[in-house]
C-alpha cells in the first residue's frame, strides 16, 4: 500500500507541475499583439490603392465596365458576368475587412495613444482627421459601387447582422465628416509622418485633399440635392488641389509594386487589349494621349503607328490590337486617388449647374483637359491644338454640357476604372457599347451598379433582402440614387 501512495503522489505531482506554462504555449510568438495605429493606417492605404489599381478579374472589372480595355480569350467579365467569380463577395471583403476595419482599428489605437503636450494633442487630432478622410473616400466608393451598404452598424464584430443604410444619408454624413476634417486639420502640427504612404505626412496637402473630396461628393449628390451640393462646393473649391497637385499612391517594387504590373507583366498573361470604345473615340478626336495610353504595336501599310481596339466583349487576338502603354505597366506606376484634373471637370459641371466656382464651365473644362495632357506628358502645343479643335473646344463640341464634359472627363480618367465608369453613369457620356452576350442581371444595359455579395444573402439575409427591395432590386441594371437621368 505504501508503494501505491507513493505512486499516487508522483502522479498528482506530475499533473500539477505541468500546467503553469499553458498560457505561454497558447501565445503567438511570431505575431504582434500590440501595434501603433500608423501601421494599420498604412496597411489600409495600401489595400485601398491596390483594389483600385489592379486588373484582376476576380476583383476589379471597372476598366472593363468603363470600356477602356476588353478581354482577349476569356470574355465573361467584359460581358458583365461578375457572379461566377463572386466579385461582389470579394469586394465587400476587401473594402470592409481589409480597408475599413484597419482604418477603424487605427482610430481605436490612435485614440488610445498617450500624447505629450499641445503639439501631441494636435498631431493626434490630425491623425484622426486623416483616418476619417480615408474612410470617407472609401465609403463613397462602396456606395458608388453598390448603393445602400452597411454603414452605421458596420465594423462591429458583436453585431453580425449590420443594417444597410440609405445611400443618400451616408453621402450626407460623409460630406459632414469631410468638412469637419477640412476645417479641423492643422497644418502646423504633425500627423503620421512618413508612415502616411499617400501624402508623406503633408497636412497642408491633406487639407486640400479634404476640400477636393468635398467637391467630388457634392457634385455626385447634386442631381438629388442641389442646394446642399452648392453650399459644400462653393465653400470648398477654393481650398482644393491646384494645377499639378494630386493624391497619388506611389508604388515601389517587388511585393510593393503596382498590382497592374503584377497582373499584366509578372503574370506573363495576355488577357487585355484596348477596347474599341475608347480607341475609336480617341481616333475620331485625333487625341494626342493615345501614344501615352497605349503601346504602338500596330502600324498601317505606310508604317505609321495606328491604334486599334478589340471589339468590346468579343474575343480578341492579343497580337492584333493595341495594348496598355509601358508607363502604366511599370512596377512603380502610381495610382491617382484624387487630383486636380478630376476637380476641374467637377467644377466645370458645377458651373453648368449654376454654382459659383470662380470660373465658367469652359475654363474649368479646358483646365481639366490641360491637366490631363500634362499628366500624360503631352506637349503643350499638341494639347492646345487638341483643345482648340472643333470637336473638343467647349463652344463648338457637339452635344449638351453633360456630353461635352462627360466625354473629356471619361478620357481624362483613363486607367482609373471606377472613376471612368462612375463618370459615364453620372453624365451618360460617351455612348458605351453593349457586349455580345451581356449577363442576364444587366438587362441588356451597361451595368448601373454591382450586385450585392452572394455571401450576404446567407450571412446577413434579412438586411440584404430589405436593402435589395429598397433600392429597386439587386440587379446590375438598378440605378443608384444619384443616377436620376
Amino acid at each position: 500500500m505504501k508503494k501505491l501512495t507513493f505512486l499516487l503522489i508522483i502522479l498528482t505531482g506530475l499533473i500539477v507541475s505541468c500546467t503553469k506554462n499553458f498560457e505561454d504555449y497558447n501565445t503567438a510568438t511570431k505575431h504582434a499583439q500590440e501595434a501603433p495605429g500608423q501601421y494599420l493606417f498604412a496597411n489600409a492605404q495600401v489595400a485601398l490603392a491596390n483594389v483600385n489599381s489592379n486588373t484582376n478579374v476576380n476583383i476589379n472589372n471597372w476598366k472593363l465596365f468603363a470600356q477602356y480595355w476588353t478581354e482577349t480569350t476569356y470574355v465573361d467579365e467584359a460581358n458583365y458576368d461578375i457572379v461566377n467569380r463572386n466579385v461582389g463577395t470579394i469586394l465587400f471583403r476587401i473594402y470592409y475587412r481589409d480597408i475599413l476595419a484597419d482604418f477603424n482599428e487605427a482610430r481605436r489605437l490612435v485614440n488610445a495613444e498617450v500624447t505629450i503636450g499641445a503639439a501631441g494633442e494636435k498631431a493626434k487630432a490630425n491623425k484622426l482627421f486623416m483616418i476619417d478622410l480615408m474612410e470617407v473616400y472609401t465609403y463613397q466608393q462602396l456606395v458608388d459601387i453598390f448603393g445602400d451598404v452597411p454603414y452605421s452598424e458596420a465594423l462591429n464584430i458583436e453585431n453580425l447582422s449590420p443594417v444597410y443604410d440609405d445611400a443618400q444619408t451616408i453621402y450626407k454624413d460623409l460630406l459632414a465628416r469631410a468638412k469637419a476634417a477640412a476645417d479641423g486639420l492643422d497644418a502646423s502640427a504633425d500627423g503620421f509622418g512618413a508612415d502616411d504612404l499617400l501624402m508623406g505626412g503633408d497636412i497642408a496637402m491633406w487639407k486640400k485633399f479634404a476640400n477636393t473630396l468635398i467637391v467630388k461628393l457634392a457634385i455626385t449628390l447634386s442631381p438629388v440635392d442641389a442646394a446642399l451640393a452648392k453650399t459644400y462646393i462653393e465653400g470648398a473649391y477654393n481650398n482644393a488641389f491646384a494645377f499639378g497637385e494630386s493624391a497619388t499612391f506611389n508604388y515601389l517594387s517587388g511585393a510593393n509594386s503596382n498590382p497592374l504590373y503584377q497582373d499584366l507583366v509578372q503574370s506573363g498573361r495576355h488577357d487585355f487589349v484596348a477596347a474599341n470604345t475608347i480607341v475609336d473615340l480617341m481616333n475620331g478626336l485625333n487625341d494626342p494621349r493615345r501614344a501615352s495610353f497605349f503601346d504602338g504595336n500596330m502600324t498601317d501599310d505606310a508604317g505609321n503607328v495606328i491604334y486599334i481596339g478589340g471589339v468590346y466583349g468579343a474575343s480578341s487576338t492579343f497580337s492584333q490590337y493595341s495594348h496598355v502603354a509601358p508607363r502604366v505597366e511599370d512596377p512603380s506606376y502610381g495610382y491617382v486617388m484624387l487630383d486636380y484634373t478630376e476637380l476641374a471637370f467637377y467644377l466645370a459641371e458645377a458651373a453648368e449647374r449654376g454654382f459659383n466656382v470662380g470660373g465658367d464651365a469652359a475654363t474649368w473644362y479646358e483646365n481639366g483637359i490641360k491637366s490631363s495632357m500634362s499628366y500624360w506628358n503631352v506637349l503643350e502645343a499638341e494639347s492646345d491644338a487638341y483643345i482648340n479643335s472643333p470637336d473638343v473646344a467647349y463652344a463648338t463640341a457637339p452635344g449638351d454640357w453633360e456630353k461635352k464634359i462627360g466625354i473629356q472627363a471619361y478620357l481624362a480618367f483613363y486607367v482609373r476604372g471606377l472613376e471612368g465608369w462612375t463618370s459615364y453613369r453620372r453624365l451618360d457620356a460617351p455612348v458605351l457599347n453593349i457586349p455580345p452576350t451581356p449577363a442576364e442581371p444587366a438587362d441588356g444595359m451597361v451595368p448601373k451598379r454591382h450586385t450585392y455579395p452572394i455571401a450576404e444573402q446567407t450571412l446577413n439575409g434579412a438586411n440584404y433582402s430589405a436593402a435589395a427591395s429598397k433600392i429597386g432590386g439587386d440587379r446590375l441594371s438598378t440605378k443608384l440614387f444619384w443616377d436620376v437621368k
Partner: protein
Amino acid sequence: MRKITFLLVFLLLAGVNFAFAQSRTITGKVTSAQDGMGIPGVTVFVKGTTVGTTTSIDGEYELDVRPEHLTLIFRYVGMTTQEITIGDQNTLNVVLESDVMQMDEVVVTALGISREKKSLGYATQEISGGELSTVKRANVVSSLSGRAAGVQVRSTGNMGGSANVVIRGNSSLTQNNQALFVVDGVPISNANTNNSGQLTGRNGYDYGNAASDINPEDIESMNILKGAAATALYGSRAANGVVLITTKKGKKQIGGAKAFGVTINSNITTGFMDKSTFPKYQNQYGAGYGPFYGDPPYAGFELIYDVDGDGNLDYTVPTTEDASVGQKFDPNFSLYQYDSYDPASPNYLKKTPWTAGANGPETFFDTPISLTNSVDVSGGSETGTFRLSYTNMDEKGLMPNSSLKRNNFLFNGSYDVVDNLTVSASANYIVTDGKGRNSTGYSDNILSSFRQWYQTNVDMGMQESLYDKTGRNITWNPVSPTDLAPAYWDNPYWVRYENYETDRRERIIGYLQADWKIDDHFSVMGRASIDTYSELQEERKAVGSGSGEFGVGRPDVTSGYSRFDRSFMETNMDLMLRYYNQLTEDLNLNAIVGTNIRHSKTDQIFASTDGGLIVPGLFALANSVNPMRNPEERVTEIGVNGIFASASLGFQNFLFLDATVRRDQSSTLPKDDNAYIYPSVSVSWLFHNNLNVSWLQLGKLRLNYAQVGNDAPWGSLKDTYAQNNTFGGTAVFSLPSTKNNEQLRSENTSSIEAGLELITLNKRLGIDVAFYKNNTTDQIMPVAVSTATGYSSKYVNAGEIQNQGVELMVFGTPVINKDFRWDVTLNWAKNVNEVVSLADGIDNLQIAALQGGVTINARVGEPYGTIQGTDFVYTNGQKTVKSNGYYMKTGTSDKVLGDINPDWNAGLNNRFTYKNWSGSFLIDWQQGGSIFSVDLWYGMATGLYEETVYTNDLGNPVRNSLDEGGGLILEGVTEDGSPNTKRVAGDDYAVWGYGQNPNAAFVYDATYIKLREVVISYSLPSKLMARYNWIQGVTFSVIGSNLWIISKDLPHADPEASQSSGNIQGWQSGVMPSVRNVGFSINLQF
C-alpha cells in the same frame, strides 16, 4: 558491420541473466494438432494473474509458478485457447487445435491494454501485418482500403501522396476528421503539410501524410478502434477513431531452443497506367477555341502572320490557345506550327502537315518501378528479446524524373531487469527523400494541361526532342510567332527536369517503458515516448519558365525558389497503475488509474525568393530579384494533461462491464476553464452460454455509451495582428481575418453503439454487426460572418453533426480440409451523416471555394461536404433551354449538386490455401458519393475528349459549322415547356463545357468497384526445409494491386483520385491516372 552490431546486442542481452526464481518451474512444448510442429509465440499465463510468458521458436516455454497458481492458460491467435490444471506436474505439453473463428482472440485496446475480444463492449477490427506487408504500398494507410468496415480510405494517386482515413464519417466541421495512429502505444503525427493553396486546388505538391513513414514490414498487426467507447481512454485526439499498430518483436528463448531468426524480404513492383483513368482524346481537330481568328478575308481557325517575311500572309496555328476546338486535321494542308519558329527545330521556318500529334500525352509517362528490400533480425534470451530491422524502399514514379526513397531502421527490445521488472525500448529512425513529386490542382500542373488545356496536334516526341536537344523551354504554347514565351504552358519535359521539387523528412519515433509487477494484484507501467521529425520541402522554378503562382504570397513569377522548413516534436509521458483481483469465484475486477502528459511543438518557416532568380540555376534565397517577402513563420505549442480511470468487471466469464472516465486539461482553452471530463460505459454479454443451443458457438451482445471532449485549435483565443510586407520603411499591420474568442469551451462528442456477434455452423460462419449514433456538439469553429463586420469569420462554439450507421462483417470458411482452405471476409458499412445545426442564423458553412465556381460546404439538413454550384433550371422536370439554344443556369451558385459521402462501402476478401500455395483477392467497392470534375468542366470546353466529336442528327460531323449542317440540339424544353429545337454551334467552345453549362453538368457519381489486390504465394515445403538446417522458410509471391476498375461512372479518371487528404474532397483537377501494379517478392527466413 551490421552482423557485428547484431552479435554485440545479442551477447549483451543473452549474457546478463539473473537467476531470481524461488518457486517451481514448469516447462513444456506447445504443438499444433494439424502438423505436430511447435508453435512459437503462444501466450502462456497463470489464470487470474498477469504472470506469464510466450513460447519460443520451437514452441517451448518455461514458467515459474507459485503454490497458489492453479491453472495455466495457453492462448494463440487462430487456435482454440486451452486451460490446463497444473497439479503436481513439472512438464505440461499442450496440443492446440486450430480455431477457425478465433473466438478467444486477444486484442490490443486503448493505451496498449491487451484484452480478450469477447469482453469488449465495443467494435474493433483486427488486420494482420501479413496482409498489409505482402502488397507493398508506399503509404501503408492506403492498404487499409476495403479491409475494415466503417473505415473509409481515399488515396490521392499522387506519388508518395496522402491518404485520407475517416472512421464512421466526418464529425468535425472544420477540424481534423482523420483517425489517430498509435504505434506500440506511441501516438504518431499524421500531419499533412501541404499548403492551403494546394489543399484548395491551386497548384502545389502533395507531400503526403506523416503516417506513411510507418514501414509495413514492421507491422505485426493493426487493430482499429472505431467508436468513442473504444477510444475514450486516449482522450480528445482519438475521437475520430484509432488505428493501433503493433510492431513485430523478438521472442524469448525458452530452454535452449533457438530464438534467433533472420528474415530477408525482397520485392520488385512495376506499374502500368490504367487507360480507363486517362483522357481518351479526339484526334480530328486541333488548336483553337472556334472560328474566331484572323481578319477578313481570313476569318477562321488559323492566325494570319507573315512568317517568312515575303510580304504575303501565312496560315499559322493559334499557338497561344490551349484548346482543341480548331481546324479539322487535313494531312494535305500545311501551315506554320509552334516548332516552325525556333532555329533549333528541324521544322524551322517550315510548314508542316496539319495532323494529330504522333505521340499523345499518354506517351509522356515513365514506367513506375519500386524496389523494397528488408532484413529483419530478431532473437531473445530467457530474459530479453530484441528485433532489429532495416527496410529500403526505392520508388520511381509515373512522372519522368520522379522518385521516392525511404530508409527505415527499427530496433526494439525488452529485458527483465529482475523477475518482476521489465524494461523495453524502441527506436525507429526513418528517412524519406522525395524528388519530382507531381504537382497537383489547377494551373501549372502538367495533368491540368493534359486533362483541361491542350492541343491535340502537339507531338510529345517533338517536345521531348526539342528539350533534350536545347535544354530550353521550347513550348507548344508560345504567345505568337514573334513572341515565343509560353502563353500558359511550359514544355512538360522542361517542367519535369528543371522545375522539380525535392523534400526530405528525418524522423525518430521511440519509447522507453518499464513494467513492474508489484504483486499478483498490482502492476505499474511507466512510459516516455517521443515522435520528432524535421522536414524540408524545396520548390524550384527555373529561369525561362512561363509565369505562374509561386512562393510566399503566391505572386505570378517566371522563376523562383522556396523552402519550407518544419520541425515537430511530441512527447508523451504515461504512468498507469493496474489492479487485478478475482473478487469472488464469479466476479473479477480489472482497474486502472493513470495519467498522460502530452506536449507538442511545431516550428515552421516558409520563405521564397520574390520576382524571380537573378542567376539561373542557383536555387537559393539570396538569389532573389526583389527583396524577399516576409517569410511565413509559425510556432505552435500545445500541452494536454490527462488523468483517467477505468474499471472492468467480469461476471462468470459471460457478462462484462466497463466504465471509464477521463479528465483533460488543455493549453488551448481559456485558463480558467481548460479542463473537461468525459465518461464511457460499455457492456458485453455472451448470451450463447445462457441459451445453451448447440448450433450457436458464440453469441454476444455489445452496448456502450461514451462521451469525448475536445479542445480548441492552437491560438484561437487571443487576437494578434497580421504583418504584411514592409512598405518602404513603414511596417504594415492588419487585423486578422478571423476574430478569436476568449470564451471558447471544449466541444463534445457523445455516442451510443450496439452490436451483435454470432459464430455458428461449427465456427465456420461469423457475423458481426454494429449500429451507432454519434453526435458532435458545441463545435469550435471559425464561422463565416458578414465581412461588413470587419472580419470574415469568428470563432464560436456552435453546431452539431450527427453520424449514424451500420457496420456488417461476415466471415466464413466455406471449405476446409487437409489440403485446401477457403476463407471469405465481407465488410460492409453505411454511414448517414447530417449537419444538424450551425451557428445561430447560419445555415451554410463554406469549407472551401474551388476552381470552377463550386464550393464544398456544411449545410444544415444536408450531409457534411455538399458540393454546391450552379444547377440546371428545370421545367416540368426537364432541363430548360434558353432561346439561344443553350441550357439555362441558376442565377446563384448555392445549389446542392451532391455530397462527398458515399452511400456505403464494402470490401470482399477471399483467401485460398492449397498445400503450399496460397492466394487471395480483395474487391473494394464504394457506392455513391459525388465528384465535381474540373477536368471535364474545362476539358470538354476545350474539345479534348472524344465525346466532342461525333456524327450529329443530320448525319454530319457535329463540329461542322451550322451552315454546313453541324451543331447540335440540346435535349430539353424551352421556358414554355415545348421541346427545344434550337441548334447551337459545335465548332466553338461554348456548348461543350464550362462556357454555357451549369456546374451540375459535370458532377458525377463517385461509385467504384475495384479489384484492389491479388496475391499468389508459394512456400517451399517444410519437409524440404527440414533438410537444410540453416533455412526455415522460403516464400515466393506474385502480387497485383489496383489491377482493374471493374465499374465506375466518372469517365477518363479514377473517382478516388484527389489532390490531398483532409476535409476538402469531392473535386478533381489535373489528377494523376491510376497505376496497375504487378510485383514479385521473395521472403527468406533463417
